[in-house]
Every structure is written in structure tokens, then in C-alpha cells.
């Protein structure tokens, strides 16, 4: 029995040690660093709340926060609806459903960098696929990535294209878990399709919707790769996101203390949004 105890601890040790060294310790260090000025070359200098006061006055912080929230507000609801709609569409007994499921899922396999590089080409104003497609309908497509009003929308479109398949699969597995007998009973009672969706499908998917929306929010608030590859934050800071700003401060300008304090603020924003999302989902039940 004692031997079992020791072996159990040894088997479980690697992830626990890694957690202590690479998550818990850095977490504490991040809090400590946010009260310092630190440029890697000189030792950290304690500055109290200076970094947090600076954040409040830093216009680039507010710009990147605004951009991040704009992306979140555009992407989360549309991503949720699109993947749910695709899942409802594919939740059918028709032939070749499996093939279409695979094809819809395809963009998820590609990395954000690859997707963004491909979209960089798709969004080319003169030669790209999107404007070429719009031309069929006589529309002169805009210069997506070079227009500060459209660049973020282009990034949202790309993210939707790249990401809806993954959440669609999660919704599909949620839909498959609803007992068929509910629908049969509703049919006997004379319910129409909309009523069945509203009173059977939707309540049964609450848990799945909560999971998907939480993952979407946590992901979108940390958006970086897309903006980094497609627009480098431009044009005119229109696509600088919070993580991008943290990256620039920490690793470009070596302001590790300031970057840490922004990342703590972002952590609190993520926490807050997750709680709000939880409330909304609870209210719906």
C-alpha cells in the first residue's frame, strides 16, 4: 500500500512539477513584474502602481482594447450562429452527410498562419478570389486590408471561415445527444418545426452553447496571429489587439513590467466576460 502511494505520486509528478514551474510560478511572477520597470538588461525596479496608472492614460492601450472588443462583438455572436446553423443543417440522415461534414471542417485543419497567408492572397484587391467573385455581380470590391474601416471586418470574415467547422462539430455532437423520442412525442402533440427547435433543441443545447461561447470569448480576447500575419496591426493601428500590444511592449520594446500589467488587466477582462457569459446562459434556462 505504501508502495502504491509512492508510485502514484511519481506517476502524477511530471504534470504537477511542470504546472508549478511553468504556470503557477510565472503567474505569481507576472503579478510581481507588473509592479516593476523591467527591461531584461537591468534588474527589475519596484515602481508601485505606476504601470497601472500609465495604462489608464495610454491611448494605444485604449485603441487596442477597443479593437479587441470590436473583434469580439463581431465574431462571437456570428461564429456561434454560423456554427449552430451549420450543425442543424448537417444533423440529417441524408446521403453524403459525412462527406459534407468533412468538407465544412477542412479550414479548421489549417494553421492560423497558413490561413492568414492564404487570405492575404484571397483579399488582394485586384487579383484576389473575393473581389473576383464580387465582380461577377458587378461589385467593385474594396482594398480590404488597406482600409482602416474594413481591415478588422476582413479578419472577422477570415476567422469565421477558418473556425466555424470546429464549433459546428461540437454542436453536432450535442445534437446527436438529444433523445429522438422527445421529437416524436412533440410530433404526436402537434408541435411544428419551430416549436420543436425552441422547446426541445435549444434547451438541450444550453450546456454546449455555454461551452462554445466561453471558448470563443476566451479565444477572441486573445486574438493575435491573424492580425500579426494579415495586417501587422495596421492600417493606422486599426487591427492592433491587446495581445499584439502586450507582445510589442514585452518583446519588441522590452518593457516587461508594463507588458505584464497589461496582461493582468486582460486576464481580468477575460474573467469578467466569462462571468457575464455565464449569467446570460443561466438566464436562458
Amino acid at each position, binding site marked *: 500500500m505504501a508502495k502504491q502511494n509512492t508510485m*502514484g505520486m511519481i506517476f502524477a509528478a*511530471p*504534470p504537477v512539477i511542470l504546472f508549478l514551474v511553468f*504556470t503557477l510560478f510565472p503567474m505569481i511572477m507576472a503579478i510581481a513584474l507588473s509592479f516593476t520597470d523591467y527591461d531584461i538588461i537591468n534588474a527589475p525596479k519596484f515602481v508601485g502602481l505606476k504601470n497601472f496608472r500609465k495604462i489608464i492614460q495610454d491611448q494605444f492601450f485604449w485603441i487596442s482594447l477597443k479593437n479587441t472588443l470590436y473583434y469580439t462583438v463581431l465574431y462571437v455572436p456570428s461564429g456561434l450562429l454560423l456554427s449552430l446553423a*451549420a450543425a442543424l443543417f448537417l444533423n440529417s440522415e*441524408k446521403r453524403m452527410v459525412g462527406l459534407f461534414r468533412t468538407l465544412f471542417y477542412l479550414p479548421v485543419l489549417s494553421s492560423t498562419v497558413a490561413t492568414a497567408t492564404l487570405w492575404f492572397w484571397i483579399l488582394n484587391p485586384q487579383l484576389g478570389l473575393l473581389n473576383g467573385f464580387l465582380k461577377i455581380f458587378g461589385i467593385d470590391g474594396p482594398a480590404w486590408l488597406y482600409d482602416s474601416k474594413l481591415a478588422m471586418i476582413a479578419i472577422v470574415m477570415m476567422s469565421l471561415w477558418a473556425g466555424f467547422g470546429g464549433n459546428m*462539430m461540437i454542436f453536432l455532437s450535442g445534437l446527436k445527444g438529444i433523445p429522438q423520442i422527445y421529437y416524436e412525442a412533440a410530433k404526436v402533440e402537434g408541435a411544428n418545426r419551430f416549436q420543436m427547435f425552441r422547446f426541445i433543441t435549444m434547451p438541450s443545447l444550453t450546456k454546449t452553447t455555454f461551452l462554445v461561447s466561453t471558448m470563443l470569448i476566451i479565444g477572441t480576447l486573445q486574438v493575435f496571429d491573424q492580425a500579426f500575419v494579415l495586417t501587422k496591426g495596421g492600417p493606422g493601428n486599426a487591427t492592433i489587439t491587446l495581445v499584439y500590444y502586450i507582445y510589442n511592449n514585452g518583446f519588441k520594446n522590452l518593457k516587461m513590467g508594463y507588458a505584464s500589467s497589461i496582461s493582468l488587466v486582460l486576464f481580468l477582462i*477575460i474573467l469578467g466576460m466569462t462571468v457575464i457569459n455565464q449569467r446570460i446562459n443561466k438566464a436562458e434556462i
Partner: protein
Amino acid sequence: MRASKSLRDILWYIVAICIAMVTVFPFLWMIATSLKPEGEIYSKSLSLISANFSLDNYVKVFKTIPFLRYFMNSLVLAVTGVISNVFLGALAGYSYAKIKFKGRTLTFSLLLSSMMIPGVVTMIPQFLVLKYFPLVGGNDLFGQGGSGFINHYSAIVLPGAVGAFAVFFMKQFFETLPDDLAEAARVDGCSEFRIFWQIYLPLIKPAAMTLGIMTFQAGWNSFMWPMIVLNSKEMMTIQVGLSTFQYQYNTMYGPLMAGTVIATLPTILIFIFAQKYYIQGIAFTGNK
């Protein structure tokens, strides 16, 4: 009634084909662009076929940047990540599911809590921990003097050797197996590791495959962390290399698409050959 049903069916297939065109056509166009000579990319940018298809763009990517090296870096990192996550994840998952040891509940809830912490918060200190790791990469006992694990494979492999998700994932599967297998083996004097390795592990092979595939995809596609810790020219991963290439040669669409095709190929191939395990992984995420 029957007529309207078949009409609805036809409509369903039309919509399905339209959506599939939206998701698949860009990939076909990417492949077509990667095979076109430069002149045609400009003159007939939208066409999918050409009489002059060639592999020149592929040759150009490998000649302009050390793309093969990037590919191999990514392969080494992703495969190492798969092996360590599956093995260490299974070992710890087994321990949490089947062995009663001190601190079991506490450490497990700690691991679970780490899944809630967004990566961006620990990014900077994690970099510093790796840079000032004592006694490696030219560092002294106090972490000074060298560059630690920065620009070394370990900077990716070590922090990501076994994540909380891998442990959690494996634990779920070991819990579905009966306890008496272990008890019988213990009576026979079998060591705890052998019980894990020879009795339980073979029974959860499909789950291990699923975890392996998910880990490979995440590792192969990861971008920000590798960009931060592997920034020297010969240590870059394929994603970082591709993004640098995109930045420097952003009008060389042919070679750019060739690089993108290569960067995407491994995950798509694995998906095609192991779809069954993929679906399991997604179902698991959905039912958490």
C-alpha cells in the same frame, strides 16, 4: 407531399454544395496558384487550371529560405510533443484514475485550474523562466551569463511536455476500465508500472491515438510561442518561417502559396487517414 420532400432534398444538396465550395474552393485555388508560373498569376489569377503547371514555386521556397529546416524543426517539435504528452499524460491520468495516493485531489484540482489561466498572462514570465533557467545554455547557477533554453527545442518541449488537458483526457478513459485488473495483477506481484504499461495502456489505445492527433495538430499549428522563444534563423518553426516569408516577399504569391500548401499538408493528411479518431476527440471536447 412526396414531391415537396424531394424538392427539399434537392435544395439541401444545393445549399450543401454551396457551403462546401466556400470552404474548399480557396484551398483548390491555393494549390492552383502554387503551381502557376509567375506571369499567369497576374494575368489569369482566378483560373484553377493552366497548361503550364510547374513545381518552380516549390523549388523557389526551399531556395529562398531554409524551408526544409523549418519543416524539420516543426516535425521534431510536434512529434516530441505527441510522444511526451501521450506517455506522461497517460501515466498521470492512470495514476489519478486507479491509484490512491496522498495529495491526489489537491494536485488534480490544481491541474484543472491551470486550464482556466489564459496563456497570455504567463507568456512573459515563462519566457524569463526559460531564459534564466540555471545551469543550461551557458547560464550559471543563478541563471546569468547565457540564454538558457531560448533558441533551443527545449523551450517548446519542456513547458509543453504534458498539459493538464492530456492528463484530464486520459483519466476519463482509464476511469471506464475496471479496478480488479490491477488488483489481480498486484496479488501476482506485478509492479505498478507494469500494470499500467502492459495491462491498462493497451486497452485505451484509441484514446491515446486521439490525444496524439490533437497534440500533433496543436503543436504543428502553434505560432506565437515558437515565434517568441525560437527566433534565430535556423531554429524557426514552419509557421514562423512562413509568416516571416510572407512579410518579406509579400508579392511573391506563387512561392507564398507553395509554402502555405506545405505548411498545411501534414495536418490534412493526418485528418484524411485518421478521421475516426478526430471525431472522437471533438465529441470528447463537446461533452466535457
